[in-house]
């Protein structure tokens, strides 16, 4: 069953050196989980038993192992193949949050309906057709599901629009947008993922957009790296909001007011290891006068994952990873941990909330920080 996966991920190159397992943030905490052993078992044709095991769902797909693998085995793809296989054999992972997010994604994949975009703040300018489209992803939904964490994902979407407005851009926010399919893709639901991808591409085509801007790195990674593999060529430009803003800062069209603060920055797996966008968010933070960036020890390609992904793993192991990252962040002396991925924000905030001790660190989203620092109209 795994022949194709083994071929495509080059798993047969495995040296059994253990660098993946040693690198894996999950393996460090959960001795049951070992990417190395999984690959080896697959090579030994032990796939039937493997599919039923919970370890199939433990991978964060953070990509650290693959980035370091001397044999360049694509363990993320390997995981994905296993999950597809597991699903087809009737084994499923445990969907977090009582399955609400998966159910929502399936709903968007299978059912018609136009999104409600009344969440866009009254003072912002958006349009239904235009050259630049802001792909909001699941931010509005997360606003409902994660309100209790104090994570304001709708605010993230609004601050993104606000910054785009400040650059003189009135982005398209489409009611026909769908979930990008990231989580379904990584948890092995190919059919629903493809449906979502097709609907999104159609939506963008109809919007007339030539450039699509993402606030969520997962959407960005899906569009730029995965969609072309499954649903064809992409005929528009794509960029993360940080890339979009940097060009405007460089050209002088966007500037920020003074904001005294010491912050640290979390590289999201998708934006960092997947897409190689390391400098733009830092450049943006650096362009805010008074804002000081204190780096954590593990940054850029070595950044520690926020600890959870695709709504299948939210265990004590994941929490331990999150707490570890939070303490690294706090150790920098920064008062704020800036994230550029809404999910990092959610996951780290959740762990921070659970944490009994004080001395935590505030967690803010990049566009919120920047929007607050907008020269002239600061709102905080």
């Amino acid at each position: 069953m795994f022949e194709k996966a083994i071929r495509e991920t080059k798993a047969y190159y495995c040296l059994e050196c253990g660098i993946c397992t040693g690198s894996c943030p999950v393996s460090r905490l959960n001795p049951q989980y070992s990417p190395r052993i999984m690959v080896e078992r697959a090579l030994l044709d032990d796939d039937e038993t493997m599919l039923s095991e919970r370890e199939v769902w433990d991978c964060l797909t953070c990509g650290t192992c693959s980035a370091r693998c001397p044999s360049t085995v694509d363990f993320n793809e390997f995981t994905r193949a296993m999950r597809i296989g597991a699903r087809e054999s009737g084994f499923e992972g445990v969907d977090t949050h009582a399955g609400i997010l998966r159910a929502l994604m399936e709903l968007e994949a299978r059912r018609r309906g136009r999104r409600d975009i009344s969440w866009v703040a009254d003072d912002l300018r958006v349009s239904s057709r235009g050259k630049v489209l802001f792909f909001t992803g699941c931010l509005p939904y997360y606003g409902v599901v994660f309100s209790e964490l104090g994570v304001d994902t709708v605010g993230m979407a609004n601050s993104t629009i606000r910054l785009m407005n400040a650059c003189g851009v009135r982005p398209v926010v489409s009611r026909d947008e769908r979930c990008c399919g990231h989580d379904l893709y990584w948890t092995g639901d190919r059919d629903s993922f493809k449906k979502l991808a097709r609907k999104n591409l159609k939506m963008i085509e109809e919007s007339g957009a030539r450039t699509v801007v993402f606030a969520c790195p997962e959407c960005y990674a899906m569009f730029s790296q995965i969609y072309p593999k499954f649903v064809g060529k992409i005929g528009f430009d794509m960029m993360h909001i940080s890339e979009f803003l940097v060009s405007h800062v460089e050209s002088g069209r966007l500037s920020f007011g003074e904001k005294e603060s010491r912050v640290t920055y979390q590289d999201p797996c998708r934006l960092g290891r997947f897409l190689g966008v390391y400098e733009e968010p830092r450049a943006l933070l650096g362009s805010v006068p008074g804002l000081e960036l204190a780096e954590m020890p593990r940054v850029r390609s070595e950044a520690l994952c926020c600890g959870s992904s695709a709504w299948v793993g939210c265990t004590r192991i994941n929490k331990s990873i999150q707490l570890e990252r939070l303490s690294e962040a706090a150790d920098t002396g920064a008062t704020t941990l800036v994230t550029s991925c809404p999910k990092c924000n959610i996951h780290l905030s959740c762990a921070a909330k659970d944490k009994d001790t004080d001395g935590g660190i505030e967690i803010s989203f990049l566009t919120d920080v920047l929007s607050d620092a907008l020269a002239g109209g600061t709102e905080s």
Partner: protein
Amino acid sequence: MTSIGTNGRVGVFLCECGEEIAPVVDLTKLSAKIGGADMPVSVHVTRYWCSGAGRRLLAGTIEKEGLDAVVVAGCSERILGPLMRDTAVRAGVNWNRTVLVNLKEHCANVHGGKRAAATAKALRLVWAGVEKALRAEKLEPIVSDVNRSAAVIGGGISGLTVARSLAARDIPVTLIEREAELGGTLRSINRLFPSYCNSAEYVREVAAEASGDPNVEMWTSSRVTGVAGHAGDFRLTVESADSSRELSVGCVVLATGADVLVPDGLFEYGDNPKVVTQLEFEAMLREGLGTAKRIVMIQCVGSRNEERPYCSRVCCTATVKNTITVLEQVPNAEITVLTRGFAQYVGDLDRARSAGVTFLRYDPERPPEVGVDTVEVFDVISSEEVAVRYDLVVLATPLVAYDETVELAGLLGVPSDRHGFIAEPHTKLRPGRFAPRGVFIVGSAHWPATVTECQSQAYSATARAAELLSSDVIEREPVVAAVDELTCRGCGECAEACAHDAVVMRDSDDGIKTASIDTVRCVGCGVCTQVCPSSAVMLRHLTPGQLLAMVSATAGRR
């Protein structure tokens, strides 16, 4: 992990239910569709699976085909469930892998004359059952040791009766009474109905008898402030003025009784010294009525209204009993009882009527008004305003729950209703299934009860407690939540959401707390599963995978 396809063979047993199902649902077509699907399923049809012959056939088929799961598609789970499950379990199928599908009330009965549509729907319903059965885990009963002793909370007539009766069966009992004296409400009552014996004396006798039994320990001026453990092994924390003690017992009898409402602000009570409650009147009867001759009694004071919509059940009986006592003491007394209709079903109503007591019916929309020396009332029967002179107005107020009882119920994991009375598990359906095992509720703590009723309940509880304590171990169907400890991230949302205090947060080596379920407290409501961010807690008898599969099948998702 949910798995399908590896869980063995399912037998689907379609019931014609005589002339109920078969004429509407085309069972031949249904069997063909089910049997023809690419699933590990065998189909059987008979006229009545619930009949003796049907059950023997079912059991035989299970054994012959080596079935691992059973779906019985017939009538209501509420009717057929226990019987069919029992039959299947005896034939070797795990109870959790026996699923009932209601083709009668939920399909055939409501879709008469629409054979094709009803058959198509029946197929979806049966598939939902099969999906559930295929995904059902084999669940073993929860087993625990039994400590052969009992705690009785409350030293009123209910508690005393239980204590005395358990002790007589040689079961060690500790009775905990919050007041210094035993006897409860009966101490304030004059006489008992129907015997008209001296109430205080009677309860004193029972108390003495119980106290004298070597198997009974009396802990007065004490209250239970903590409960841990489960049926067979409860640990109570009992506090008195100067000490705190631990008590280990196998079961707990809750007999804390109820309070009598003090009707402040109603019918001049509190302002007019001639207005008293029925309870105060009992004391007056004991001490002598003095000059009072004209007595007006008002029923349903503070009950059957918006705040307390219930009938307190015992007041009518008490009132009638008291009219008779009055007439014994003051033969020429003029007694008028203002009622909203008599709610008693035992009592001396006729005797009171024949003795000359006047009964008027008032309208709650136009309640009686207590004046300086008359009570004015609109008599519904005669449609007339009536003014009744009085020396004394006696208000029958309802029994209300003690706040303390609600707290105790909370500690014991027993639900209480919106009035604060203990919500007993449904007595008609699945008795005892959702009650915390080992906890028995007796008397007015559960609902206003007469002394007779209290004692009946006490003996009944004694029997059930003794039954529990007679075994070395107890077993229970694990209709409870379960925490995957490897997954739990210790956020405590479940513990916060649980109304039964069934979630215990423990410290773990990794510094993250771990939730665990007190399986005896847990009633399996699933509230915790809705708030768990990690989906670490689930109902093993109805997993998320099962529910989703049932939804998909029922909706006919392809």
